[in-house]
């Protein structure tokens, strides 16, 4: 493999990896606080992509992005209020099943409302006109996605570590009962958590649709699934871990093909075998700690 080809693949990996990372953060954040996998995350991601698809017809792109993220946040909070909140004190498996139900519900709702037809996404031209440096083609989006991811992660860390609701989130993640006894409105904090998690999912959905300009009701299933795995490999509950896991998964996927072009049909198999091996040696993931502050 030539150096040029390798560098091209590094950028390919960075683009897809940072998108996985962006989705994975949402999973890990909700898990960190509630110890619960929000399987509807991938569908909020899809909702974000559809929202921007419809809003960007009428309004300019940045406003559409903000509205789509806000709308998805509300959807996330609504999902929590209707499907998870009544099950707060039920066994955890019940909430998990409810999450899977919500996921199917949202997918099929989208199928009825938007039909199964894939739709082209709106792509601002400056994001997808490649920059050519020494034979390597790089999309501006490739730089934008990690920047957006970094800004969102920093914002999230600031909220979690520097604000009062963040303090309450951390308290809930350690001991929900005691936090409630201290007079914290648990439900409001959890709603905030879902709102933030869903905003991240929508941001990821929008960026994903920029990169892969095709929107359909099941678009969240596979990226959501892969991002969930990335979050687990990184160490679920850890925001830094989610970013590392996402980048690692993207890199492995791209390099598996780059180094074995004849076996490219087995790309996912290569990627997941490696991830299984990582989990065998590091059962709590790359940066997973035993039981400590999980966010």
């Amino acid at each position: 493999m030539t150096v040029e080809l390798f560098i091209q693949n590094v950028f390919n990996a960075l683009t897809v990896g940072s998108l996985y990372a962006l989705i994975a953060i949402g999973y890990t954040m909700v898990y960190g606080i509630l110890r619960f996998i929000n399987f509807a995350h991938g569908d909020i991601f899809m909702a974000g992509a559809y929202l921007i698809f419809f809003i960007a017809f009428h309004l300019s792109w940045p406003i559409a992005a903000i509205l789509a993220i806000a709308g998805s946040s509300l959807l996330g909070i609504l999902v929590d209020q209707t499907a998870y909140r009544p099950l707060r004190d039920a066994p955890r498996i019940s909430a998990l099943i409810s999450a899977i139900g919500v996921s199917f519900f949202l997918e099929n709702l989208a199928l009825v409302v938007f039909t199964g037809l894939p739709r082209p996404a709106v792509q601002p031209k400056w994001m997808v006109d490649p920059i050519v440096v020494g034979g390597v083609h790089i999309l501006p989006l490739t730089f934008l996605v990690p920047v957006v991811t970094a800004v969102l992660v920093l914002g999230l860390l600031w909220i979690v570590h520097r604000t009062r609701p963040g303090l309450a989130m951390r308290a809930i993640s350690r001991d929900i009962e005691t936090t409630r006894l201290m007079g914290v409105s648990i439900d409001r904090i959890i709603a905030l958590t879902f709102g933030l998690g869903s905003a991240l999912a929508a941001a990821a959905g929008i960026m994903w649709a920029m990169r892969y300009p095709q929107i359909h009701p099941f678009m969240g299933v596979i990226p959501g699934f892969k991002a969930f795995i990335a979050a687990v490999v990184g160490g679920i509950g850890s925001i830094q871990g989610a970013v590392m896991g996402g980048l690692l998964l993207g890199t492995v996927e791209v390099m598996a093909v780059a180094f074995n072009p004849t076996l490219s049909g087995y790309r996912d198999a290569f990627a997941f075998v490696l991830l299984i091996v990582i989990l065998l040696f590091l059962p709590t993931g790359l940066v997973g700690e035993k039981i400590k502050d999980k966010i």
Partner: protein
Amino acid sequence: MKLLKILAAALFAVSLMASTGQAQVKVGVYLPLTGQNAFGGQLELDGINLAAGTLPEVLGQKVELVVMDNKSDKVESANAVRRLIENDKVVAIIGTYGSSLALAGGEVAEASKIPVVGTSCTNPLVTQGKTYYFRACFIDPYQGAGAATYAVKNLSAKKAALLTDVSNDYAVGLSEFFKRSFLALGGEIVAELKYNSGDQDFTAQLTEIISKAPDVMFMPAYFAEGGIIMKQARELGATFRIMGGDAMDNPETVSIAGEAAEGFIHTSFPYDSNMPDMNAEAKAFTEAWKKANPDKEPNVNAALGYASYVMVLDAITRAGSADPAAITTALAATKDLNTPLGLLTLDKDHNPQMPVGIIEIKDGKRAYLGEITPE
């Protein structure tokens, strides 16, 4: 309680009406109306409905279409056929778009001995060795050879690369047939890359293909993935010609790929609303379509749906009865049947012979370049 009585009376009346009404011939339709292949399925259904509107009766009985959605899913496809046969007792079935779906549905029809006419399932295995599966479309060896012939003769291509969805029977078959013909015509295959249905990132595969500098890349994808592949290829600086199969014949190809679709060439069936010399049946179909759907261009999938319905009705007429066994025998003997795709004659493997249409995307629009007979 009173309400219940009224309901019961109403139900009784309805059932009485149904049983005393005119006898009906039930024809099942199974197509992907939702999911990945919904677009093609919907168009084929439009074509079938159009044909049913034109030819509503056979043997003096009304034809009743029973439509099932196979949801672009192999399991649902088998279920749809089972339901049509066991629940609705249809005498013949039309469908489906998608060879994987047809293979799944065909198993059930074969076991239940109900004839099926495929609309656009082009993989040879759909009818090969089957007694009850027929089709209105050509098969992939023919289509793949058509694409390879065009690449070598008209585009002077010497080196080709393949990018194939390994989880799709249609794509695997078509790539294989393209490869065989391209090699036979003296070409060279420089790269064979693969992916799985549902993948969205093809940059690693495309980077490898670009490094091998082929003249053409053959990519027998469905339009949804195909559009993204073309886009990513151009973003990575690919300058080679991209070619595909009939599954790319869809307006969405251009709306997803945008400028990247420029110069894309794909094979298709020999019908196009802008084709230069149209036969009488194709003209009739085009006019009927424009009357029924003034805002939609007639498309080849609709023509195939239309032709499939015509095939079934022709078979029932010649059989002189709506008995599935008699229809099967009559279908196998289909000869010189007038359809929008030309005169249709089925060979011993239940496949019609027809030339391969070549379409190029020019200025964001499909242009019918003509027909080619594969070598």
